[in-house]
């Protein structure tokens, strides 16, 4: 497996505030790297550095072996790093295929009479979604009518189709029910199987553990460790994520309260 992204002691400072410090991890093609952390752990800062929204102030960020520092999301996207944010960058009242190809519509005809090749667009969108294991019967239906999981899969399929090598998913399961979360986890695995490096950001270890190959745990802007799957169990993961001792304390207090 080739290594796509390597991070070494990455840090980010806003004035005298340390947003992120000493983060080290790697993302391999065909693998899922999970970034876990509670609210305020520095997950957003971490994604924004990878996606080119912010630049890191310390450490080394290597993409395919060379040191990089992205100045804009467009630059990161051109290299093949695509971020799927929680708001998904979708237009809810527009059809699935229009959303899929928005900004990069396949056209035919001679200027000035160029039109979108709806058939190709619609079929491609359907086929790409099918590769993710989701059957969109009617690509004309508005994205707003899809379920949260399906919408997520449209965003993922779109990023994959437009040549992403690394896919960053920001809390894709946080707003979903159990069943829908399961569906999204399946898409994450499907994307990894197609040779992408996936960065899966979540605060739910139960979602991260079944799909992850590597786990980066953040707490208050600091790395709490970077583990391969065989180095850690789910219970340990949960414990480390919430600061270990604090959780035990809390569990104790809760059981007392009953």
């Amino acid at each position: 497996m080739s290594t796509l992204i390597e991070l070494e002691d990455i840090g980010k400072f806003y004035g005298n505030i340390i947003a992120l410090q000493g983060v080290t991890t790697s993302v391999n093609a065909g693998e899922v790297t999970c970034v876990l952390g509670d609210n305020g752990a520095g997950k957003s800062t971490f994604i924004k550095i990878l996606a080119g929204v912010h630049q890191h102030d310390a450490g080394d960020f290597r993409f395919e072996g060379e040191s990089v520092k992205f100045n804009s999301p467009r630059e990161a996207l051109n290299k093949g790093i695509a971020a799927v944010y929680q708001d998904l960058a979708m237009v809810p009242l527009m059809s699935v295929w229009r959303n899929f190809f928005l900004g990069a519509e396949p056209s035919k005809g001679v200027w000035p009479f160029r039109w979108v090749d709806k058939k190709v667009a619609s079929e491609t969108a359907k086929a790409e979604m099918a590769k993710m294991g989701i059957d969109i019967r009617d690509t004309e239906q508005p994205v707003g009518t899809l379920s949260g999981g399906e919408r997520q899969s449209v965003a993922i399929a779109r990023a994959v189709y437009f040549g992403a090598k690394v896919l960053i998913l920001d809390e894709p399961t946080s707003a979903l029910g159990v069943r829908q979360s399961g569906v999204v986890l399946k898409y994450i695995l499907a994307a990894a199987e197609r040779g992408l490096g996936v960065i899966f950001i979540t605060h739910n270890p139960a979602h991260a553990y079944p799909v992850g190959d590597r786990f980066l745990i953040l707490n208050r802007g600091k790395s709490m460790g970077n583990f391969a799957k065989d180095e850690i169990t789910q219970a340990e993961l949960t414990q480390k994520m919430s600061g270990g001792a604090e959780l035990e304390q809390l569990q104790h207090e809760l059981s007392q309260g009953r």
Partner: protein
Amino acid sequence: MTDSVPGTGDMVVIDEATAAEIAAEAEETAVTGADERLAYRGVFQRLLIRPEVGAIIGAAAVWAFFWSVADTFGVATGFASVLDVSATLGIMAVAVSLLMIGGEFDLSSGAATGALGIVTILLVKDIGELGGAGLSLHIAIPLSLIVALGLGFFNGVMVEKTGLPSFIVTLATFFILRGFKLGFSKLIIDNISVGRIDEAAANAELDKGSRGYEFWKPVFDGVWARNDHILDSRDTIWLVGFLVGGSLLAAAIYEMNFRSNDKRNPMGLIVMAAGIAGAIATILYMHNSDGRSANVLAAALLAVAALASFGGLALWRYKRQAPGSTLFSNETLVWAIAGVVALNIGIFLAGWLGVESQESVLDLVGGLRWPLVLLGAAAGAYQVWRTQGSNFANDPFRIGATVAAIAASVAFAVYAFMFMTTEQGLRAILFGLFVLAGLLLLAMAAYKAGRVSPVARGLVLSVTALMGLRLAWFVQGQSRSTKFRTEAFSVILLTALMLLVWALVSTFFETRREDDARAASLSGLLARGGLLAIGIGLIARLLFTTTDEQAAGQTNPANFRMSVLWFIGITIFATWLLGSTKFGSWIFAVGGNKQAARQIGVPAARTKTQLFMIVSVAAWLVGLLLAFRLNTLQSGTGNGLEFEYIIAAVVGGTLLTGGYGSAFGAAIGALIIAMSKQGIPGARWNSDWRFAFLGIILLSAVIANNFIKTKAEAAGR
């Protein structure tokens, strides 16, 4: 699967088995493909989700209403004047709807039409020392186009650069234009009416060929004098088109209930052959006959023949829905057939017993109009309410229908007794009783059918609606009293229309399963065929005059002008632009979610600026149309019309918040406004009521659009 609620940060540790279960379940969902809750969206439902459908239904209702109250409506004379009024309004409404879908407003669009027309006139005018450029129209028209592009660009850049709401920015532009129009007109020609555009032809310094008036006049104000186009079989074509189209639509509804069958049923071929033979025989009969009633009969027969043909086709190639849910019980069929027969006996008796003096019969029916209206309204409202839930078990429909029917019958009986003593009275009662019995039987059939399947109910209701139309035409054809004819006709027509809408709504909002999709293709074909037939009939009806009408003096000038062609052309272009091009997708995107569009690489600012420029180019075109039509423009021309454009767009289904809408809908919206403008004076009402009417239309359109959108989306979920 109750142990984990994601998103709440729960502390419960899920064991690996549960996690595997989640994955397995996900797998299963993906493999079986569809979630069983995903409802199938049928042909009509896909139609209903389109933004312009509400407007089309509304236009049909408004049109039917005015047709019945204003004699000039529904024939070429009235249609031409409606089109004439709607053209300039519609061109702007289409452009404005594009801008509104893109999420912006242009309040200067109304004033801009006048301003750009005035600019053109001033460019061609030669006033010696005072000013005016005295240019040839060949130069002046492109020059004013450049001014228009500049105006749109200014609006767009101001909105984008300042980040202010377009509402405020274009309000400022509106006042600037208004001031300029007045100021420049007074400064240059010392008059607030600016004319005349044909003076380009009188400019001594230009030779005749280069003045351009002769060249441009037909482009912007050519006329197709429709009074030259006489077609005596017009009403026949219209009736045949309507009935055949209606039958095909009914067949389309019927077809929805069928699945493709591998085993062919030879009975179907026989029925189909009989239907086709019947159709041919009917056409031959029609060819050899003349007179209105013979044609009506022929049209009805043709409709039956068409239904039989397609029924046969269905029988041959398709089989019924899932076992256990047959379309009709025998009971339903008996009720329905009895209803149709009773209704026709009533009509026959009324015609047979008193061809000479049926005035009282018809007055009697006229007396029924309010009970009928109330009945129809109650039924419609009830059905709308009913689609909210899906519990059909405790169906209060029977109670409601019975109470309404009893009330109507009592009212009818009391009224009828007053006529008991005369011969006409007897006839009236016979007619009324049979018609009422027929309607009740059909209602019963609809109820029985509804218990079996919603599709069957839809079919029965469609048949009832067709019967209603038959009644309407009978009454219209028999009566001599204009006042009565228009009232009864309108009531019956509206009731029938309401019934049809009810049938469609109730049938197609029912949840459907995936395998229904296969039935949709043929059904869609039939529906399209039906609409085409109705369209052909309607066009014949609306474009041509009969010799009778000419003799009756309906020859006041009603001409189709070039502006209508521009209107149609621009509507088609805008629909294409919106639906089939990259730019169209971008319009929806910047209006629907500008942030997302930008993130994904859509040039949002450029798209919006281009939209403002499209509006100002449309204003330029309308300015020229007005200038060539009127020759002289007032400095106030166009001021205040921007709200009519916005109303037209909204009535046509465009969302005020952007991101959703249709150019075609805006064109229909313009037609509705034009109809109310022409229909109210046509009905000899005080035209002061026009604005109230406009307001009511706007409100009901917005509510209806909202309702349809929510319904269709919810059902598509």
